[in-house]
């Protein structure tokens, strides 16, 4: 018998396949090419955000500001387009805004040494505030027709554009993490920052680039969101904040840092997307999706920590009933 290595990704993959099977039995229209393509379309925005969050969590950091960065990006693109009427300039300005936000986080965390959760808690409010000030709290929907291609268009009339972008970005991130010196440094910083410093890793530089990467991914995600819904609003990315962290952790990235893979995150995001889409097709209330996403996250982690729980229960029984 072949001994399969029992990894988190494997458990998750089995969970995911079981979920797919259940969905295709319960909702006949689930397992069609068109529907599956639309699932990938729905997961791309969350997925791209989660790519950045994954890299950040691997360094044992966290970024609560990604939702606000996405919202700010949409506002910057819309405002710049209103001023210049040049779409390329507007989109570049939006992406640069995301990079600057990421750099701001990075400076606070890497140079000053503020714990990531506190730094990004502050910048989350701050970036959202800037977006609200620029837009005066309004939604802006003054875009040209060509802007909608990214979020609503198809390549060869079948492949959703954002799915293609997501796949390309996921491949790039996976390559960066596993095949480049930068990626190895990201893991080493998360595993043991002291050891990383002593082996010549410039801690602050690595962290700075990690948060800039997170900011850029958030900006791309914001760009796609605003193109899909044809509007720019300061709170557009907010719903994805907790979901992106949940999907990353579901995908096996250790919140304490040092381990995690892009394929895991992609499966994690897919679980959420399939759950949402399948329940929708079955006509289940959207409120139940929230509940089941939380249950899925906790369930997978419980299965993962089974041995710890078993030991504790055995110990508890020994101490109290013998």
């Amino acid at each position: 018998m072949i001994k399969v290595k029992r990894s988190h990704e494997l458990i998750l993959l089995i969970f995911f396949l079981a979920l797919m099977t259940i969905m295709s039995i319960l909702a006949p229209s689930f397992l069609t090419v068109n529907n599956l393509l639309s699932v990938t379309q729905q997961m791309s925005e969350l997925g791209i955000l989660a790519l950045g969050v994954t890299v950040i969590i691997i360094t044992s950091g966290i970024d609560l500001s990604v939702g606000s960065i996405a919202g700010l990006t949409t506002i910057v693109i819309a405002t710049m387009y209103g001023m210049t009427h040049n779409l390329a300039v507007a989109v570049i300005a939006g992406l640069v805004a995301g990079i600057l936000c990421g750099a701001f986080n990075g400076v606070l965390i890497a140079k000053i040494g503020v714990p990531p959760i506190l730094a990004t808690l502050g910048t989350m409010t701050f970036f959202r505030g800037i977006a609200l000030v620029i837009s005066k709290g309004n939604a802006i929907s003054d875009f040209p027709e060509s802007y909608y291609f990214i979020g609503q268009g198809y390549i060869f009339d079948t492949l959703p554009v954002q799915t293609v972008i997501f796949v390309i970005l996921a491949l790039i991130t996976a390559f960066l993490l596993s095949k480049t010196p930068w990626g190895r440094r990201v893991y080493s910083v998360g595993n043991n920052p002291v050891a990383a410093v002593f082996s010549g890793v410039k801690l602050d530089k690595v962290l700075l680039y990690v948060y800039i990467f997170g900011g850029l991914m958030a900006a791309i995600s914001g760009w796609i969101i605003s193109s899909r819904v044809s509007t720019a609003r300061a709170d557009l990315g907010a719903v994805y904040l907790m979901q992106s962290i949940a999907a990353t952790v579901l995908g096996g990235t250790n919140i304490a840092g040092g381990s995690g893979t892009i394929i895991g995150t992609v499966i994690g995001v897919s679980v959420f997307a399939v759950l949402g889409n399948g329940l929708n097709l079955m006509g289940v209330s959207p409120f139940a999706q929230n509940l089941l996403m939380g249950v899925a996250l906790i369930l997978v982690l419980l299965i993962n920590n089974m041995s710890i729980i078993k030991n504790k229960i055995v110990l508890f029984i020994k101490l109290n009933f013998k």
Partner: protein
Amino acid sequence: MRNWLKKREFVMLMMLVVISLGISLITPAFLTPSNLLSIVMNNIILAIMAMGMTLVVVTSGIDVSVGSQLGFAAIFVGLVALLPTANIFIVLAVGLVCGVLLGIFNGILIAGAEIPAIVVTVGTMNVFRGSLLLYTNGKWVTSLPAWYTSMYNSSVLGVPIPIIIFAVVVAVTYYLIQYTRLGRSVYALGGNPVAASRVGINTDKVLLFVFAYMGALTGIASILYGAQLATIDPNAGTSFELTVISAVVIGGASALGGSGSLLGTCIGVLILGVLQNGMILMRVEPYWQDVVMGLILIIAVSVDVLNNRKKEAQKKTIDVAKAIKGGVSA
């Protein structure tokens, strides 16, 4: 005296005074007894929950499910208050029990299954909110009875009831962390978990207690929430957890665990409350509120980190100097 001046709480208190003075110079309406009372009354719920969050942060944990807990408990309290046989004691008991149960649910997953607090509470945030929305189908709880809603505005011996409840919460929390073994264990666990378990502290029990206590205070806050607003939205408390955490952090609790005080948290809550109230009185456009709040938070944590670094640096030089002197004298 000098030590007292250097304390983190004193710095934050000075900041609060400076902000208050600045606002009162611009708008005379700020520094009136009725306005100051309304600042306190409007932030009682935040303050009660921040007391619990202080303990959670001291253990280097975090609880992002408290917003959902607040909504969950508030709806149940509201539904019970609508029953014909209900009275104020039943309502209090239901809120408290509901909160404690939600907190224990978090605590078992965090202490028992050793899943990190942020992950568990991100999950339970969705579980609590989702099950609540599913149960209520998104409907609000309205037309609450007068005996319940009047609780918020009535007073005993001239002191409003919410302030009395807050005072009791502070007194109980202070007693717990200052004079009981369990409460001291909370700080021990946050300061150094390995050392804490070596000296015989049952760390699982302490964690369970901290999250259950957080739940209990959220339950108490939910009772006041329904009484204050008279209608309860099943989305109540959405993203309120971030305000609670901000108040605790501005108050000086370290996210690395082991430090944090109730007085500091109270000042943190007041800074947030005064800023919000002042900006409304000064007729600042509401969009600027987030910018200012975010900046205050960023500055507070950055200054804290820089101060700590300076202190650490001083510590090291003193140690070296002593060691050299010791060597010379020997």
